[in-house]
């Protein structure tokens, strides 16, 4: 038996409940042979005796009993709420962890309080054909695209030697509804009319010549 094992067993052997008979015999054999462990064994037992000499109970102040009875008699109907039961039997950290978990579940569990979370947009694959500029002018109803809106989107610029693609790439076609739905495009008319609106709504700023504005 190694000394480290023996020193571990010394503490275990303090309790008849933990060390087996075989282990105690093995320890005894090692102590017969090792002076250092014998000394350590003595220290272990002196500690055990010092612990055993601690009084299991102490005198209780006489007033303590009266105070306890007074508090017990004053319990109102002996009503114990569920919260008090929890606090009595669960340590504070467990209660705190439960509260945090509940908050996280409420906050994180439903990211979109308005309903189903939107499906993630499919990432468009690389477009193999040269990108074609989709003029915004084609999106607005007052500059109507060709009557056949289901037809291909014809751009203003294209190489005259090459025939423009008859159909947009599938990836671009898939994103068109999104482009059409951009708020900035929906409000493009408002932006175009901004200058006229600005003239009507701009507040005239006072000039430095007016009384009270000079520093």
């Amino acid at each position, binding site marked *: 038996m190694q000394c480290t094992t023996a020193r*571990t067993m010394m*503490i*275990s*052997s*303090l*309790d*008849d*409940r*933990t060390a087996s008979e075989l282990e105690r015999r093995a320890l005894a054999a090692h102590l017969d042979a090792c002076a250092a462990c014998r000394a350590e064994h003595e*220290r*272990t*037992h*002196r*500690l*055990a*005796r*010092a*612990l*055993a*000499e*601690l*009084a*299991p*109970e*102490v*005198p*209780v*102040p006489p007033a*303590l*009993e009266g*105070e*306890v*009875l007074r*508090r*017990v*008699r004053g*319990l109102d109907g*002996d009503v*114990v709420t569920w919260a*008090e*039961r929890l606090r*009595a*039997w669960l*340590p*504070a*950290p467990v209660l705190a962890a439960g509260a945090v978990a509940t908050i996280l579940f409420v906050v994180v569990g439903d990211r979109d309080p308005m309903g189903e979370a939107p499906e993630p947009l499919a990432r468009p694959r690389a477009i193999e054909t040269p990108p074609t500029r989709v003029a915004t002018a084609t999106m607005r109803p007052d500059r109507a695209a060709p009557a056949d809106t289901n037809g291909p989107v014809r751009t203003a610029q294209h190489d005259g030697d090459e025939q423009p693609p008859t159909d947009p790439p599938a990836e671009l076609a898939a994103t068109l509804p999104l482009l059409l739905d951009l708020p900035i495009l929906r409000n493009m008319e408002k932006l175009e009319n901004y200058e006229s609106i600005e003239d009507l709504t701009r507040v005239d700023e006072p000039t430095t010549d007016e009384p009270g504005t000079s520093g």
Partner: protein
Amino acid sequence: MSTGRPTTNATEPDAAVNARDEPLADPLADPDVRLMLEVQAGSETAFRDLFRRYSGKILAYVGRMIGHGARAEELTQDVFVQVFRFRDRYRPESRLSTWIFRIATNVCLNELRRPEHRLRVDLWAHESDPDDTREVQLPDPEARSPEENAAASQLAEALRREIAALPPKQRAALLLARVDGLPYKDVAEVLGCTEGAVKALVFRATHGLKERLNGLL
């Protein structure tokens, strides 16, 4: 090898109760259980008896867990008030002492988590009175020489200080198992862990004390 602690609790009649490590065959044969059933029925006399039977142990335990003094007495009150308030939760299948110590341990561990207690613990460490023998009963001082008595007192004072410095769960496991003599199974029930965990806690606590008290042992 025995720890020196009595193998039976002074409050338990030897004939009616099994060995401490054995489960209660007939709970109603245990006078503590019968007492608690009367408390559940609302008997103040029974509650008073229960208080007198356990208050000394609980006050000693609480004092060693959080420090002696007025706060330990307040928490001891809290323990017994909770014993009364939650008396309907007690089941005769477990020992009454285990149930009460569980309440006391929870009260102490909650107290030790309070920020203000950390300051109070530091003050208590400096206020320890070497002449305070409340918690140490030296066996017949006249049987020892004066030098032996002085050494024993010094060891007892150092032991008290080092126990207070143990981590709370190690401290609780050590006190319950080595001072109050509870079986490891009951200590596990008090602490809400396995027996294996209790053995580990007691081992670490004992080993730590031995290391720090090496010069005095």
